[in-house]
């Protein structure tokens, strides 16, 4: 018996190709992009001019603070009907994870530079289960300060805030602890666990010292201390999602982070992703061991960050909760209270 012959016969029933249309389509797109004068994975940065910034955080904490102040009524609702650029048919079908990562990075690199104290106006919707809450807030790029308008008056909130808006007895409150600390477990069905309760794992001031190589950055993210997350890959994805939705980072750091997301083992692409506002997108997807699914949703045309989506299992039972954030407008402004052009007040 010759071991090499036996090895050659092993799995010989696997047919000789052909690969699916996905591989052909991806290559075709790359060739077309190059013929059109763009690098093969440079994305389409020119299409996103209407949105100067697309990489701003899900203002979960800020919204939580705002809601805790009782200002929910001041948040505009008209933004829900504002059409977003993602409403057009997606053009990102057939992308591999790396293709999506590098297109997203290329798009991020076209964003203007930003300093930690720069103020930014952002509006969008936060979704918890079937509840959709619109918001518009001002925060600094490093998320250290936030402001909301309450009855026409600007209220400042000191950040960073960590908290979770939940419904308890029909009232929205900010939960500062794990989900199992809810005052009454019978209200669990009304609680919406949308993500880690911790602050972003990396302080804004430390962002500049992160590795510049995507793989090194991915390894670095895996090694960060994060509670309640399973595998290193799960940890890396959650931290990355937290960073892109928590800070307005310098463009080069955002770009490296996007490439690093493409290096996380187990991350796949969802060509039919949808953000919390129902806009179609293309998503980086990570599914953990328990089947909980997290997505970072990118615009299928501009490859800018649109929002996040999560479907998570309640730790104490079979209930499943979905949540997410969609950013409908995000603009650099000169200070809190200033509305950018086109903002619905």
């Amino acid at each position, binding site marked *: 018996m010759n071991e090499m012959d036996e090895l*050659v016969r092993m*799995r010989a029933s696997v047919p*000789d*190709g052909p690969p699916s249309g996905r591989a052909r389509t991806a*290559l075709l797109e790359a060739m077309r992009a*190059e013929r059109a004068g763009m690098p093969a994975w440079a994305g389409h940065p020119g299409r996103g001019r209407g949105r100067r910034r697309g990489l701003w955080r899900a203002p979960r904490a800020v919204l939580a603070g705002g809601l805790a102040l009782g200002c929910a009524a001041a948040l505009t609702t008209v933004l829900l009907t504002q059409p977003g650029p993602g409403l057009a048919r997606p053009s990102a079908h057939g992308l591999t994870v790396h293709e999506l990562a590098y297109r997203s990075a290329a798009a991020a690199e076209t964003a203007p530079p930003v300093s930690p104290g720069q103020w930014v106006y952002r509006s969008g919707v936060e979704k918890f289960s079937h509840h959709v809450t619109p918001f518009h807030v001002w925060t600094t790029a490093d998320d250290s300060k936030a402001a909301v308008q309450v009855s026409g008056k600007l209220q400042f909130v000191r950040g960073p805030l960590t908290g979770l808006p939940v419904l308890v007895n029909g009232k929205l409150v900010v939960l500062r602890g794990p989900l199992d600390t809810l005052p009454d477990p019978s209200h669990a069905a009304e609680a919406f666990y949308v993500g880690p309760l911790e602050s972003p794992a990396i302080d804004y001031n430390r962002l500049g010292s992160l590795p510049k190589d995507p793989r090194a950055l991915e390894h670095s993210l895996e090694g960060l201390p994060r509670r309640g997350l399973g595998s290193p890959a799960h940890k890396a994805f959650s931290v990355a999602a937290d960073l892109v939705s928590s800070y307005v980072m310098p463009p080069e750091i955002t770009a490296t982070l996007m490439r690093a997301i493409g290096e996380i083992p187990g991350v796949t692409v969802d060509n039919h992703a949808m953000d919390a506002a129902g806009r179609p997108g293309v998503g980086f997807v990570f599914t953990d061991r328990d089947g909980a699914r997290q997505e970072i949703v990118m615009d299928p045309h501009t490859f800018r960050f649109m929002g996040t989506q999560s479907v998570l299992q309640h730790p104490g039972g079979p209930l499943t909760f979905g949540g997410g954030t969609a950013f409908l407008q995000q603009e650099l402004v000169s200070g809190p209270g200033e509305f950018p052009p086109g903002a619905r007040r």
Partner: protein
Amino acid sequence: MTVNIQPGRAGPASPPATPGSPAPPGETSDADLIRRSAVDPEHFAALFRRHSGPLHRYVARRLGPGPAEDIVAEVFLTAFRQRDRYQPGQPDARPWLYGIATNLIGRHRRSEVRMYRALARTGADPVTEPFTDQVEDRVTAAGTARPLAAALARLPAGHRDALLLVAWGDLTYEQAAASLGVPIGTVRSRISRARSRLRQALAGQDITSQQQGESP
């Protein structure tokens, strides 16, 4: 220009390139295609037609058809983007393409080993199940596949890569060395050790079979 990158099924009318013979006689070499693609990217489509089928089969044998789709897509995208770094003196692009594939397969190492272990433990091969219709074929295949799979699961990754590039990828030792970026002596040594492990595993399987055959 019409773009046609339908992968050509390597069959009798269009035989795949044999080791050391990158392109069928009369056809443009891989290196020429890559060089021309610098001017007209669509020449790269011919490289896809030529190699995507066998490459897909190689990756599918290691990881199953699902991941193979993604990896083949990524191999060709990576190759397309990095084609300016291709060594023009290498007429056959397979070592280059299989080297990229090996790097990508490395990200699925745990999954690959898990499948070998499953095959060794149960005799059922998750990779070939979709392609094996006859129960008899499955049983026959499982006969030697189980000890081989157990040995493959235990091999160091570098040894497994070298061995399978030759056994399943149809590369020569020299091409495998180019794929892995190591000296040919290293490939010889790795394959020699890996084959020794396989021999031992098969010998153990023979003894077991004999003992089972002798028992009433």
